């Protein structure tokens, strides 16, 4: 059997076809449960659900352009330290897969215990915009239109989240199985591609009809990546210009209220207790007065810029650009723009790309005897 198969779509409903795939997976002895986005009541989009009863799959919808949280953390919880009862088949977006790879490197989860399935991702709406997208009409039809447009344009007056519009990884090569949507007619059929030996094993067992690669998906993917990479570079330029000095950075972050939601939503900020929530930042009254005296005034709460720069130092090398930081911000601070822009530099500096390869160690967890001589003025 080859590594590409076709998923037949009946009645123009690709979601039903993917639900059927979930049912088949649950029927496999090796799979203990399926972790899949499931529709919430109303027009609130989807949240991951851990499903063991096939009947509960009726509302599963891994194709909905709703991305309320990064599911990598959920899968980390389900796989950390090993499972006795088989694999968890997890439907993740490409950025969630890459975040999960980063978490596995940090021993927060395990690839061994997961079968990762990732559908091509045209993007998703922010939590604030999703209800507008869903509107009052037929959700299934809106979704198929969205898939067909590969996320381009606006839907009921809203566009996909900025993080998605500048995403250069709309498909996953790290997942065990990929669901091919790009370049297909989603109301007629989708592709299933195996990327790993585990994926191939399951594909054989699913007994789907084999197809020959016509190059349509690669071509569509290439075009989308080119568009989004160009948008990404424009975003980098804008953000760099806006934050080129401390005054600019202060202005950029001015709306921040130190709620630290960005940190909570960040899939790779995995510390159980962030230092910014500890006693270290429980300053004494005399310290505040002293700081105020130094400059004549002190913004309260303090440490806003300090928090963001420190978080950049702590996690930018692991940033996968999922945009959940911006999604979680209650005050519209363009957190994702800042973090992706800086992460591009820090990851380049260490020739690292977050989520690319499970075997590449996080840059700050390793060192070499001779490297970065420029840091110490040419002395090694």
């Amino acid at each position, binding site marked *: 059997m080859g590594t590409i198969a076709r998923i037949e779509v009946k009645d123009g409903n690709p979601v039903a076809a993917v639900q059927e795939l979930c049912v088949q997976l649950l029927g496999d002895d090796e799979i203990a449960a399926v972790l899949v986005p499931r529709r919430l009541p109303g027009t609130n989009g989807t949240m991951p659900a851990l499903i063991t009863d096939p009947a509960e799959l009726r509302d599963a919808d891994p194709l909905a352009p709703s991305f309320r949280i990064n599911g990598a953390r959920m899968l980390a919880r389900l796989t950390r330290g090993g499972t006795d009862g088989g694999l968890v088949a997890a439907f993740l977006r490409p950025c969630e897969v890459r975040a999960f790879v980063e978490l596995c490197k940090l021993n927060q989860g395990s690839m061994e215990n997961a079968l990762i399935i990732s559908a091509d991702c045209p993007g998703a709406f922010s939590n604030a915009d999703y209800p507008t997208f869903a509107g009052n009409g037929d959700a299934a039809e809106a979704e198929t239109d969205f898939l067909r447009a590969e996320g381009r344009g606006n839907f009921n007056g809203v566009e996909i989240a900025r993080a998605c519009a500048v995403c250069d990884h709309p498909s996953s090569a790290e997942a065990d199985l990929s669901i091919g949507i790009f370049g297909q007619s989603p109301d007629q059929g989708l592709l299933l591609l195996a990327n790993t030996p585990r994926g191939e094993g399951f594909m054989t067992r699913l007994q789907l009809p084999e197809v020959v690669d016509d190059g349509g998906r690669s071509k569509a993917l290439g075009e989308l990546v080119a568009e989004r990479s160009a948008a990404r570079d424009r975003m980098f330029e804008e953000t760099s210009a806006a934050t080129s000095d401390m*005054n600019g*950075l202060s202005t950029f972050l001015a709306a921040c209220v130190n709620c630290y939601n960005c940190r909570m939503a960040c899939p790779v900020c995995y510390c159980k207790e962030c230092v910014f929530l500890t006693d270290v930042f429980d300053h004494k009254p*005399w*310290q505040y007065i002293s700081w105020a005296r130094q400059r004549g005034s002190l913004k309260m709460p303090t440490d806003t*810029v300090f928090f963001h720069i420190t978080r950049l130092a702590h996690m930018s090398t692991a940033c996968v650009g999922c945009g959940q930081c911006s999604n979680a911000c209650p005050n519209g601070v363009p957190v994702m723009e800042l973090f992706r822009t800086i992460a591009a530099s820090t990851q380049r*500096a260490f020739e690292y790309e977050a989520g690319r390869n499970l075997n590449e160690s996080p840059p*700050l967890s390793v060192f070499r005897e001779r490297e970065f001589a420029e840091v110490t003025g040419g002395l*090694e």
Partner: protein
Amino acid sequence: MEELVVVPQTESRTVPGESFEPAIVAFVCNWCTYTAADLAGTARMVQSPNVRLVRMMCTGMVDPKYVIKALLSGADAVLVSGCHPGDCHYINGNYKARRRIKLLKEILPRFGIDERRLKLTWVGASEGNEFAATVNSFVAEIKELGPIDTRRLPLL
């Protein structure tokens, strides 16, 4: 308790040049550079008085946030100094420090903090003269650069 006030009270210090006295925070390791600083002191070597030493057990424990905090609080520069490669008391802490400084040198200049305001050096325990020379040349370099912006900004 009194906080170390790094913002000078005299007006003239905002002008780069001879009257500007930089405040430099140095994170030095207990086993090498701190010992070298001690040696430079007891040997009465001439050193600029602009450096405030923070004695760490190892440069490998200098979290990026210490450097960021110092620079945001108005320190004109930060020196991190430890054992020569291969000499770390904890085997490899200085190699880890080098990666962290590399990281900070990627991030801070993006926000207009001159890369020269952060320096990593290796100064062994017996190198008191080397420590004094490092301090003196670093102070001269920062005097040339002038005061850091964060001193006068009503920073958030």
